[in-house]
């Protein structure tokens, strides 16, 4: 119960943080989105024995965390669901790669860590609303962006429905740890139906207010000089590290 409620709260807090006043938050969503995408693509393209290159790629998360004033500690708490498997895969690597096991393990670990960090940085500095708007600016089809946004909303609704149903269940099955496997089936079925129902209502409320696939909310603002500088410096640095 507690774990689940914490997840929902963390989710919400991250959303709120994304609309904060920090230096990273002030950048244009489109600039941040482009930098993140380029960074991730380049990072993952490094060869598994190129430890030096991957190490250099650490510049982005390190600078962003320090200069952008993003606290580091909450990242571990929020991202551990993804970080733990990434780390486990990295650590298990020497058993599969006998020749350069240690080097490829380090490379893999760092790649995973940096990728998670870069994604996290985008998440805590850019709200979903702004992100959808940026995607539309990039001419991503409206239908794709709508679906993405609905999935995101759906995730929140889904977590809340789980929390509600677990509360209802545990109140009537006191002293029982977890949920008995015999009712899993019906519980999961109920959960899907209920969250689908709610997502549909949310969508209805959007269409009733004239929604036709365009995300016109979020903050509209022109590219400023610092946005251009951020975009060019980051992408240039990434390309230099990769190709020189």
């Amino acid at each position, binding site marked *: 119960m507690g774990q689940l409620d914490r997840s929902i709260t963390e989710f*919400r807090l991250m*959303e*709120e943080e994304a*609309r904060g006043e920090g230096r990273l938050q002030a950048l244009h969503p489109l600039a941040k989105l482009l930098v993140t995408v380029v960074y991730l693509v380049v990072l993952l393209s490094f060869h598994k024995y190129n430890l030096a290159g991957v190490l250099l790629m650490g510049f982005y998360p390190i600078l962003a965390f320090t200069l952008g004033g993003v606290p580091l500690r909450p990242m571990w708490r929020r991202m551990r669901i993804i970080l733990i498997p990434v780390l486990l895969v990295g650590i298990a690597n020497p058993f599969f790669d006998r020749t350069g096991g240690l080097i490829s393990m380090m490379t893999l670990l760092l790649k995973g860590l940096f990728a998670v960090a870069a994604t996290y940085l985008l998440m805590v500095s850019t*709200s*979903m*609303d702004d992100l959808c708007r940026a995607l539309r600016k990039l001419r991503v089809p409206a239908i794709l962006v709508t679906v993405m946004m609905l999935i995101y*909303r759906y995730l929140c609704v889904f977590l809340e429905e789980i929390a509600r149903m677990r509360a209802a269940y545990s109140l009537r099955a006191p002293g029982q740890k977890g949920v008995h496997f015999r009712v899993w089936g019906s519980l999961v079925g109920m959960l899907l139906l209920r969250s689908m129902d*709610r997502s549909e*209502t*949310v969508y*209805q*409320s*959007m*269409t*009733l*207010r*004239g*929604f*036709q696939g*365009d995300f*016109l*909310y*979020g903050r*509209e603002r022109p590219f400023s000089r610092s946005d251009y500088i951020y975009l060019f410096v980051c992408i240039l640095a990434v390309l230099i590290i990769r190709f020189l």
Partner: protein
Amino acid sequence: MNILELESLNYAYPGARRGEAPIAAVADVSFQIAEGENVGLVGANGAGKSTLLKLICGLLEPTGGHVSVAGTEVRKETLGQIRKDLGYVFQDSDDQLFTSTVYDDIAFGPRNYGYTPEQTRAAVEKALAAVHIESLKDRAVFRLSGGEKKLAAIATVLSMGSRLMLLDEPSVGLDPRNRRNLMEVIQSLPCAKLIASHDLDFIYDTCSRVVVLFKGRAVRVGDTRQILADRAFLEANGLELPLSFVTR
């Protein structure tokens, strides 16, 4: 001109399984609402209130009869036009508020209808002032209380300049103070309203006319005071007067 006209409206939900009989939820309902009038839609649980509201805004398509809003018949082709005149306040405010801040949610309608940024800001500010929540403008939606959420949900509809507001069980889940505040806000708004509720006290104070639904039928349409004074009639239709009412 009437803002809303219903003419022998019918709706049946499809049966749960193939070959099963459809479930009639709204049967032969006719009534009108004049511009600026407040009308209560009362009935017990399952009487068909929510279904009727969804038919009016075109979320459901009637299986018979006609609905027209501001003189235009509600059909697939006219939905875009009609929805500008209509506002729907959902029973559960969480269904209504889906962006992250109060401001963005209230600005959602105006932006979709092509308002300029200045027009949007003006419309949002006017809507916030009308429900007295100016201070919540930049608040995250999940940090609102139930009462605040309801007011914000009403503002999301007001900002579009709707002439008819449909409210589904607006007073459910509010404490007495928030409920009284909501009542005052509703009374102060000039647009016409159709308020679905089984909270007769609330209807008594906000609506001049009521439509009583029973098993999908409009069994009576008329003056609020007259109908709500008819205790035997109400009880026969699954409605009960609150205690405070009996002594009035």
